């Protein structure tokens, strides 16, 4: 067995306290890297694999702010929301833990190999199944219960009405964990699941501060809220610094949205020529204000 991988049974001293308290705790878990610190707060960030660029940005926003405040981010290392949240947490200098539906040696999905490596730097990879087990369908609902088991709050970023995230939420309710959801537009099918959760009584995640306050409501001392958690969601502020836009860039940027717009749509709504528009779009991309999410579809970056 790889030296970095440990098997921790329920009898073990290191077995996470939080996992012991769930209805059907795993008999043991395989861990590559570290285990989550029981003394620290943890938030699980989950959502759709096939998420929008907007969802990705929101996941990064919450994950980086929470991680900067010292919260551990738990997720499933999947495509979309999961991966985005975990890599943002690492970038913010926090620790993040990936719970897999396959063995800890198996990188699945392959496109997340980078995130897999990053996660190991500050956190760990956890799985209930043995090291080289392939990702089987049946493993995933079981994995979801561990994700929920390890966290204090479950945060849902983007989810369709009937989706895998639904199972995770059900687990959270069984285990008595708080669920927060990010609200979305009524017409977005990717936000339908989140809006439904809110209707059913989930917390509304307006910003990372809301989540932080909820995390510490049972504590005696005040939570440490860093400035980035209070930051209002303002897309003109890109990253943490202001970017200055000039001339045609302003025009083109004002036509863009957090939802993908095709080049034709942009052209139709402005008097600019194709080459002017493309030049402006390219400069905006270089400045990091805009990204091309699919061929000739552009979105604002947050």
């Amino acid at each position: 067995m790889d030296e970095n991988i440990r098997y921790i049974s329920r009898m073990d001293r290191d077995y996470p306290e939080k996992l012991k308290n769930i209805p059907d705790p795993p008999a043991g878990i395989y861990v590559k890297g570290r285990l989550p610190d029981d003394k620290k707060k943890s938030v699980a960030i989950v959502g759709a694999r096939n998420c929008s660029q907007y969802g990705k940005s929101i996941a990064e926003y919450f994950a980086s702010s929470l991680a900067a405040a010292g919260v551990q981010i738990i997720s499933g290392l999947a495509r979309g929301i999961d991966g985005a949240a975990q890599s943002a947490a690492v970038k913010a200098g926090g620790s993040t833990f990936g719970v897999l539906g396959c063995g800890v040696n198996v990188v699945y999905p392959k496109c997340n190999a980078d995130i897999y490596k990053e996660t190991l730097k500050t956190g760990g990879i956890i799985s209930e199944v043995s090291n080289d087990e392939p990702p089987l369908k049946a493993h995933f609902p079981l994995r979801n219960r561990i994700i929920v088991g390890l966290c204090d709050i479950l945060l849902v970023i983007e989810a369709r009405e009937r989706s895998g995230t639904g199972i995770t939420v059900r687990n959270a309710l069984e285990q008595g964990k708080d669920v927060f959801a990010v609200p979305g537009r009524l017409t977005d099918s990717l936000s339908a699941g989140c809006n439904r959760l809110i209707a059913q009584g989930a917390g509304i995640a307006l910003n990372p501060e809301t989540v932080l306050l909820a995390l510490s409501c049972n504590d005696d001392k005040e939570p440490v809220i860093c400035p980035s958690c209070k930051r209002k969601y303002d897309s003109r502020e890109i990253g943490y610094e202001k970017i200055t836009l000039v001339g045609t860039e302003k025009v083109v940027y004002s036509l863009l949205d957090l939802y993908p717009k095709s080049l034709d749509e942009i052209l139709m709504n402005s008097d600019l020529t194709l080459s002017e528009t493309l030049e402006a779009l390219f400069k905006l991309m270089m400045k990091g204000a805009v990204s091309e999410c699919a061929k000739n579809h552009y979105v604002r970056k947050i």
Partner: protein
Amino acid sequence: MFSSVKTMSLLGLSASVVTVEADISDGLPVFDMVGYLANEVKEARERVRTALKNSGLSLPAKRITVNLSPGDIKKSGTSFDLAVALALLASLEIIPAEGLEKSMVFGELSLTGQVRPVPGILPMVIEAGRYGIKNCIVPFDNAAEGSVVEGVNVTGVKTLNEAIGYMKGELLCPQGKKENNVCETNANEKADVDFSDVNGQETVKRAMEIAAAGMHNILIIGPPGSGKTMLAKRLPTILPSLSIQECMEITKIYSISGKLEKGQGLIRKRPFVNPHHTVTAQALAGGGSIPRPGECSLAHKGVLFLDELPEFSGNTLEILRQPMEDREVHISRTQGNFTFPSDFLLCAAMNPCKCGYYPDLNKCTCSASDVKKYLSKISGPLLDRIDICAEASRIKYSELKRCDKAEDSETIRERVKKAAMIQNERYAGTGIRFNSELSASDLEKYCVLGKKEEELMKNAYDMLSLSARVYHRILKVARTIADLEGSDRINVSHLSEAIAFKSIDRRYWHG
């Protein structure tokens, strides 16, 4: 008595002279045909005999031997019928033998004595001219096609009797009218489609203009019903006009494939070939025991449009790699090696995902891996040969109903022509014709960047994690955009436009 008539046998795009020898001598009444004949040539015996009978002539009860020489090349096709009939008639001294020596005869006979059109008249008449023949007798329906050739008199005949009358000098058959073969700049026939038919889709139109100007292969991505096919059909209308040489090449290919319409002369329109996605590799490249040109040769000097690119089988698409590189298809068979020209502009269209609505996540029902899987059906090497990629979005009602007419093909073509001329001058004597043919070393010579542009490309290279290959393609396309503008130097706006049209890179398809 013995007599002989000359005709041609087709082999791929080339033709070789075949002499039909006929001898009628005493003996048991037999009609024998020899000379390494395919089945359809052997059957000429029955067609000729019946056609002669129905034309009021009968064969004597003698020993008839017909030989097609040289005896070592396989003769196939039905173009020998008329030559066999005339050779027999000369042996019977019904027609004079002298006239026959200076002529070549092509045509299929029906049982009633009608002369039917045959494929391959143009290459055969060209070869006849080269052989020194001044006179050709061809089926009436092929007369226009044959008379394209300079220096050869082509006579079209409708029936066997007409041919006999002509040989006897009794009947003057209408000669195929000589077409004006002067190389005109506007040799293109007026197309029945035009870019002004399409409202909106300015992005794709611009991408197509660039593709046409630099002969870049292009891929259009868009949801179903956004007009990808409609746009692609109009691509040939903005390509530069054909030279007479090019018209000949196209007509030759269509002639041997039997795809020329009745009475059609030179093809003056760039072909648009649109094979269904179930097409086999052989049908695309050319095949058969005696190979015939495939779809990619039929698209020679025109556009090969592959709709629903991911639906084509992998093998079929791989076949395209060699013709796209060499602009020729080489096929080897027991009969020999065949080469068909296939210098086409590849235009491919595809949906962004299986359901067709990605990146509209409200409509798209595909999972992230579905989208990836769909795209990965196109092999990397093929994607490497596509310079431009544009996105056709769903068209809005307001655009659909716009009153002002969109730009017409003629205006766009003028710009394309100008850009083609600039390229012609720049690459004179180098063997390069279009920007798309530039190699990496040529790029350093012809695509010199200024300081500002250099910096932009460096940023783009890092930010967009471009590969070296994509980087080169961006330069080529930027060169074409600069040529369209008549600018010597490649500047920032040319580069940013080229980057926007850069081909998709599978790694970055999702996010």
